[in-house]
Structures are given as structure tokens and as C-alpha cells.
């Protein structure tokens, strides 16, 4: 199994505040990995570092052997916490933008998913409900044939039925050689689709383990273990 992401002694400070403190982490290809931690633990900071939206204060981060930049953006598909879709544009414009920007974007796949959800590509983003906007954003991100998908809180703002749809979209579009990193605090919802979890707290990695190992060794679900580890 090859390594898709490797961090060594990676730190990120915002002024006096340390968001990530000297973390080392290795993620393999072909896995669905949960990046789990309470609010403010450093999840989004790590994801932003992976996507070159922030620069490390110290340490290294390599994606398929490259530092974040042009090369890595070709192989990393990113779903940010908040949607960046311009309300005045049509869904179809975004399909063509993505096809234009990303060599690995599969237009027919995107159109197919929109059709299955009954979303008319000619509609403007502002006419869609919040949940539908999030689905459109996810469809755009999952229609790329990327090596690493970074999904930052993909299910936070939507109802349970939409959550199911989003999770099945992730499962159905997941290519065996790609890795999906999902950051969330809604653990019980994603637990069954994860291979592996990384617990992060106050900028430190608390635990990295296989889901089934945790269940076998601790006799506890990931949700249960999370509640134990991060007990307030």
C-alpha cells in the first residue's frame, strides 16, 4: 500500500495560538479515513494546509511526495466547510468551470448525479435550498478522479436523509486507489463507512487506528470511544 500523505513535525501557529503542534502522520492510499476531533481541535487547519490555503509554521507535509502546490492540486479534491458557489451562477456553469480547471473532472458523472437527484443544471445556485447547494458542491468535488479527497464537515448542515445521500455518494464514487479524508464531529453517522480514524485534540494527534481494531480491542464503537477520550 502506498502513502498518499505524510506529515512530519508539522506545526501551525496563528500568532500566539498553536493550532497544530508538531504532528506526524502517515495516510495510506485506498482508505476512507475519519479526521475526528472536537471543535477547534485543528481539523480544518490540517485540511487547509493539505490544500495549500495555509503555509506550515514548521515541519513538512507531502502529498504523493510533493509539497502542497500546483502538482498536488491536480490530485487533491477539496470540499471546504462552507460552500464557495456564486449564487448568481447556474449549476451548468460550475460543471464547465470544473471541467476546465481540473483535468480529472468527469462531466458525464456529474451530470448523471445531478439527474438522479433531479437537479436541473440550468437552475441558478440561489434558487436551490441550502441542502441542495451542498449536494451540488459535493457532486462537483466527487466527480473528480482524484487521488485524495478532503471533505471538511460534508454532512454538518444537512438533514438525515440528505446525509444518507451524501454518504452513499461518497461510497459509490470512491475509487479503490483513492483516499478520502473526512473531517467531522458527527461520528455515529460516518462510523460505518470508515476504515480508519485519526483523533485530533488541541493540535495533537491523540490516536490513529483501524476502526475494526478499536471495536475488537476496546469493545467500543468509535462514537463511544470518542465520547470517552474527549469527555468534557
Amino acid at each position, binding site marked *: 500500500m502506498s502513502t498518499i500523505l505524510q506529515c512530519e513535525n508539522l506545526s501551525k501557529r496563528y500568532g500566539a495560538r498553536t493550532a497544530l503542534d508538531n504532528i506526524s502522520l502517515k495516510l495510506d492510499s*485506498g482508505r476512507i479515513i475519519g479526521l475526528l476531533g472536537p471543535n477547534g481541535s485543528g481539523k480544518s487547519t490540517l485540511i487547509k494546509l493539505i490544500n495549500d490555503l495555509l503555509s506550515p509554521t514548521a515541519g513538512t507535509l507531502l502529498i504523493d511526495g510533493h509539497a502542497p502546490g500546483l502538482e498536488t492540486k491536480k490530485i487533491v479534491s477539496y470540499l471546504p466547510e462552507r460552500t464557495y458557489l456564486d449564487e448568481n451562477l447556474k449549476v451548468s456553469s460550475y460543471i464547465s468551470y470544473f471541467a476546465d480547471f481540473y483535468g480529472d473532472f468527469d462531466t458525464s458523472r456529474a451530470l448523471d448525479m445531478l439527474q438522479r437527484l433531479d437537479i436541473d443544471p440550468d437552475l441558478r445556485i440561489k434558487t436551490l435550498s441550502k441542502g441542495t447547494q451542498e449536494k451540488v458542491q459535493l457532486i462537483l468535488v466527487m466527480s473528480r478522479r482524484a487521488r485524495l479527497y478532503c471533505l471538511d464537515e460534508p454532512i454538518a448542515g444537512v438533514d438525515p436523509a440528505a446525509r444518507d445521500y451524501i454518504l452513499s455518494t461518497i461510497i459509490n464514487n470512491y475509487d479503490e486507489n483513492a483516499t478520502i479524508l473526512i473531517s467531522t464531529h458527527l461520528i455515529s453517522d460516518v462510523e460505518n463507512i470508515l*476504515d480508519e480514524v485519526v483523533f485530533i485534540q488541541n493540535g495533537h494527534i491523540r490516536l490513529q487506528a483501524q476502526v475494526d481494531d478499536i*471495536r*475488537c480491542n476496546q469493545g467500543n*464503537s468509535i462514537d463511544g470511544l470518542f465520547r470517552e477520550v474527549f469527555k468534557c
Partner: protein
Amino acid sequence: MTWILDPSRPIYAQIAELVRLDIISGLYQPGTKLPSVRELAAQAKVNPNTMQKALTELERSGLVHSMRTSGRFITEDIDMIQKMKENLATDQIRGFLEKMSSMGFQPQDTLKLIEKILKEEQS
């Protein structure tokens, strides 16, 4: 299909049991082809890797076998399926008897009670 999962046991093991139950119950007939890993994973709402592991487990037990390119098939060995069915039923009954005994019922009392309930249901 409903997939109720026990938090303290590996997901793949529970999924393997559910698929086994579908074979034993005849939902998947002997000798027929199983749906693909991806389809099963989507149905169960689990990761394809987990489903893969569950099916490998079933292969080890001999209940399914994989044909290199054409997918996975249910065994044609009806005796084996029948035997697993009996084993599963035996486990259920043992568990039930244990529960009854913890409530203070001797096996013969339990049996009488079962007969009584069956008669009531028939009438």
C-alpha cells in the same frame, strides 16, 4: 435490508453474518451470483473495503467462492447451507434457553409454555 450493528464488534464480522443469513434464508439462492462488492456496500451503507473483508470471511467458510473475473457465487453445496442453518438455529435456541433459565424456567417448563403458545396461535 436493515443493518443494525453492535458497537462492540467489528463491522465486517457483522456484515458477514448478515450476508450469511441472506444465503441461509434463500434470498440468495445456491449457485447464483452475489451482487458486486460495490452494490452490497452501497446497500449496507458501509465502505467497500469493509464489504470486501466480509466477503473474504464468507469465502473462508466456503459459503461463497470467487471466480476470477466473473464475481462471487454462492456455494451449490445445499447440505452445507442446511448445516449452517441448523447451527444458527441451534445457537438461537441455546441462547433462548439460557435466558429462560435465568428467569427461573426449567427446560421442560419452557417447552410446555412453547406448546401452549403454539396452540393459542393456531386457534
